[in-house]
């Protein structure tokens, strides 16, 4: 592998880290492409080739994961949670949540207990981000 690919990977990772760190901010693809120092079209293409999903999808799943966390672990209202994690419209939040998780935010809240024990947040954030790679569906089918 060439060193240019490594440089590109590292810059794309920097943009991905920005999504994990600042998901509650109004991040758009143009701003993320600037972090990665590439054009927007090139950013979307290379991000997908490198990480297996588009930057938009990655951010949606990060926001939905954080909303799942707040639904499980807090008493905040669904509208507050929607805004907390960076969505600006309740309609978009509910639709995206249902599409990714397979149930509504309120149904998820009713049906899910808090994660107990001594699992570090960073580990839970990594493993509980709903996946676009297909295995979440397999698990729920099984």
């Amino acid at each position, binding site marked *: 592998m060439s060193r240019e690919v490594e440089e590109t*990977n*590292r810059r*794309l*990772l920097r943009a991905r880290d920005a999504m994990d760190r600042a998901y509650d901010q109004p991040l758009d693809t143009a701003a993320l492409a600037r972090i990665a120092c590439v054009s927007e079209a090139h950013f979307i293409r290379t991000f997908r080739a490198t*990480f297996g999903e588009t930057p938009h999808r990655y951010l949606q799943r990060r926001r939905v994961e954080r909303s799942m966390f707040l639904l499980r672990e807090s008493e905040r209202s669904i509208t507050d949670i929607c805004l907390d994690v960076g969505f600006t419209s309740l309609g978009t939040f509910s639709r995206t949540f249902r599409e990714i998780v397979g149930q509504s935010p309120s149904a998820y809240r009713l049906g899910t207990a808090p994660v107990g024990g001594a699992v*570090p947040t960073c580990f839970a954030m990594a493993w509980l981000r709903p996946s676009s790679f297909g295995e979440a569906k397999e698990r729920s089918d099984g």
Partner: protein
Amino acid sequence: MKNFDQITSAHIWVLDHQEALDFYVGKLGLEVKTDISQGGFRWLTVGVAGEAVPEIVLDVPGPPVMDEKTAGQIRELVTKGATGVVMVLRTEDCFGLYERLRAKGVEFTQAATDHGYGIDCGLRDPFGNQIRILQPKVWKG
């Protein structure tokens, strides 16, 4: 009798020894434990100042340990951030350390946050390895 009494060393892939030293020693403030170059290799370890163990081996992938293609695959995984959390460092003051390291230009993946079990933050080394810094609520050992 238990089989072991301590973890003495662990290993992480870095992509350049000097850049690794600049970061792990120059920025994070670990100290060099061993630095021996002989023939084609460099045995470079770092650890917490004043603590004998564990030592972290900073190793660069490449021949003759492995072929260039395999080394390239490791470099690709490291730069994609796919090596996971390579170490957790304990501190008495996570918020203060977070600010000091940020001022030095360390790249954080998560700001210092109180999670209940303790305060922690996440950062990356220059290559893509992830490191956590934890100020635990309950101090063990």
